[in-house]
Every structure is written in C-alpha cells, then in structure tokens.
C-alpha cells in the first residue's frame, strides 16, 4: 500500500514544521527550547541503557540456548491455525506484563528476521499499538486505592487483541 508509506513519510516533517511554526508564532526561542529538551532525551536514554543491557542479555541467552526456536516449533501448529506467526507468541504474552521485556524480544526478532520482513512489520506495528495491561492497571489502581477493577480487564484485553489483529492484517497489506 503506497498510500500508507506516503502518509508515514509526511508525518515527521509535518510535526517538525507545525511545532516550529507554532513556537515562532508564540515568540518562543525555539532553538534554545529544543536544545534544552534534547538534553532531557539524552538523560532518558542514558537512564534506560542499564535496563536494555540487562534485558537484551536475558533474551540473547535464551535465544542462543535454542529455547526460543524450540518454543516457536511447539507453538507453530497452534499459530498456523489462527494465521499468526509463531515467533510472535512470546512477544504478545510478555507484552502484557513488561514493556521493556517485550522490547528485548522484539529487538531479537528485528535482529533475526529484519525490521522490514513481514514478522518485523507485525512486531513494529503491534508494539506501537498495545500497552502493558497488567503493569498499567496495577500502578493506577494502587494509586486510587481500587481493589475491584470491574470491567477494566476484559476491556483492556479486547483492545489489545483488536490491536494485534489489526497489526497482522495491516502488515499483510504492506
């Protein structure tokens, strides 16, 4: 779908232009603000480096041991019935509990299959349209002193599966 690609190509330049023009209109020192914010970005990345090393080593060990391949073979029968790539089942499962662990598995997929392969595309889209259900729910519910979450979990699961289904379908069209 060439249309998707054209839109994708336009979004970052449009955001760039929009923000800079709006900032100028409000008479902000846009470049100074940019530099100030960019420092924050560097701190953020420096902050996640230890996490990334830990998780990528964890996933790297698991992959090198051959366990992930074995898991993919075991789940291949099931996943072929629902037209879902077996390699992505661990990502989907882990995604619900930990965003960074799911990132570790996704990077492993990018490394092995390439980010532009079908599996790489499904992973990219899926990681962009889902959230860490159990983590988010527990943090927010603890903050508000909630014990009974009522229909939050079914709703959250529905969203997540709708997102995953959409990722598989859209990646197939690209």
């Amino acid at each position, binding site marked *: 779908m060439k249309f*998707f*690609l054209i*839109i*994708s190509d336009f979004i970052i330049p449009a955001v760039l232009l929009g*923000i800079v023009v*709006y*900032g100028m*209109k409000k008479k902000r020192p846009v470049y100074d*603000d940019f*530099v100030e*914010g960019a420092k*924050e*970005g*560097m701190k*953020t*990345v420096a902050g996640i480096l230890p996490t*990334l*090393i830990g998780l990528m*080593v*964890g996933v*790297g*060990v*698991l*992959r*090198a*041991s051959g*366990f992930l391949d074995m898991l993919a073979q075991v789940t291949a029968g099931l996943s072929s019935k629902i037209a879902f790539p077996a390699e992505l089942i661990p990502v989907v499962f882990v995604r619900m509990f930990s965003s960074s662990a799911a990132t570790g598995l996704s*990077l492993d997929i*990018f*490394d092995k299959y*390439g*980010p*532009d392969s079908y599996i*790489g595309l499904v992973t990219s*889209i899926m*990681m*962009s*349209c889902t*959230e860490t259900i159990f983590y*988010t729910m527990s*943090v*927010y519910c603890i*903050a*508000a*002193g909630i014990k*009974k*979450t*009522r*229909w*939050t979990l079914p*709703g*959250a699961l*529905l*969203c997540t599966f*709708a*997102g995953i289904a*959409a*990722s598989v379908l859209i*990646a197939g069209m*690209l």
Partner: protein
Amino acid sequence: MLNYIWAVLIIIGVIYGALTGHMADVTNGALDSAKDAVELCITMLGVMSLWTGLMEIATRSGIIEALTRRLLPVMHWLFPNVPDNHPAMSHISTNMIANFLGLGWAATPAGLMAMKSLSELNTEHPDSASDAMCAFLVINISSIQLIPVNIIAYRSQYGSANPAAIICPAIIATSISTVAGIIFCKLACARKKGLG
C-alpha cells in the same frame, strides 16, 4: 514483575543451553547482546533527543494546553459522569495528549493524578472502580500514540530501509484498538444502566 521475568529468561536459557550443548553460543549470546544494547542506545540518543527537543518547544509554547482545551468536548462524551470543571478532566486530557505525543514521563504523573481525582468522585464504593475509572484505564491501555519514536529508533538500528514506514499503519492499528475500547466502555456502561 520484571525481576521474575528476567530471572526466568536467564535460568531457562542457561539450563536449556547446558542440556542441548549450546554453552559456547550462550556465552557469545550474552556478550554480544550487551554490546548490541550499547550500540542501540547510541542510535536512540539521536532519535530520542530530537523528539524530546521538539516536545520541549511544544510544551513551552503552549501546544499541549491548547490541545487539552480542544479535547474537552470529547472528554465530556467519554466521561459523562465527571463534571466538566472537575480537575479529573484536565488530568485525563493531559495524560491522553502526553501519551498521544509519546511523552511517557508526563503521561504517568497526570494519569495517577487523574485516578486520584476520580476516586474523590467515587464515594459510593471506594474500593471498586467507577465507570469513569474503568473507561479511563481501558482507553489508556488501548494505547493512543501518534509517532512510535522508540520503535522507529529500533528499526533504524537494525537496518530498516525506511524506519518511519510503520507510522501510518501503527496509527490505523492503534485507532482500531482505541475505537474497540471505547465501544466496549459505552456498552458496559449502558448495560449497567439497563439493569438499573
């Protein structure tokens, strides 16, 4: 949670590697992965700093506040039980806009404030989530993001020909999941009213 996941990754990896005779691969896997993580962070330094820099301009010039005001009619429709001038409304809007723009650090505090303000309105059953809380959490989890900055950085690091190519597909997918979430919320609220 992450402590268990990480421990399980390492334990299964090492034991399975020992049983299948892949110990040399496991050693290299661990060392190479640590190196890959550093290389990845170098790529991310550029992309993330570009994005947080732009977002700083957006925040300081008031784009976020302007968007929050524009969002009020939508908020009113999504959370009919919350009064328009209640602080929960502005916390929810700020959280949604921060998520939309990929500002995780701004989204979480606003989200926590939103939950606390909503619990002030939830006097009948304080330990049970109100409709507004359920709806807020479902929409939050459905993930609304304009540009998945991290994923683009990862794709770029692993040699994608066009790392940003997934922006539009991701917007469509995330819209589908959010619309599914909103429909679910509206049905769940309507059913409760129907039962009286």
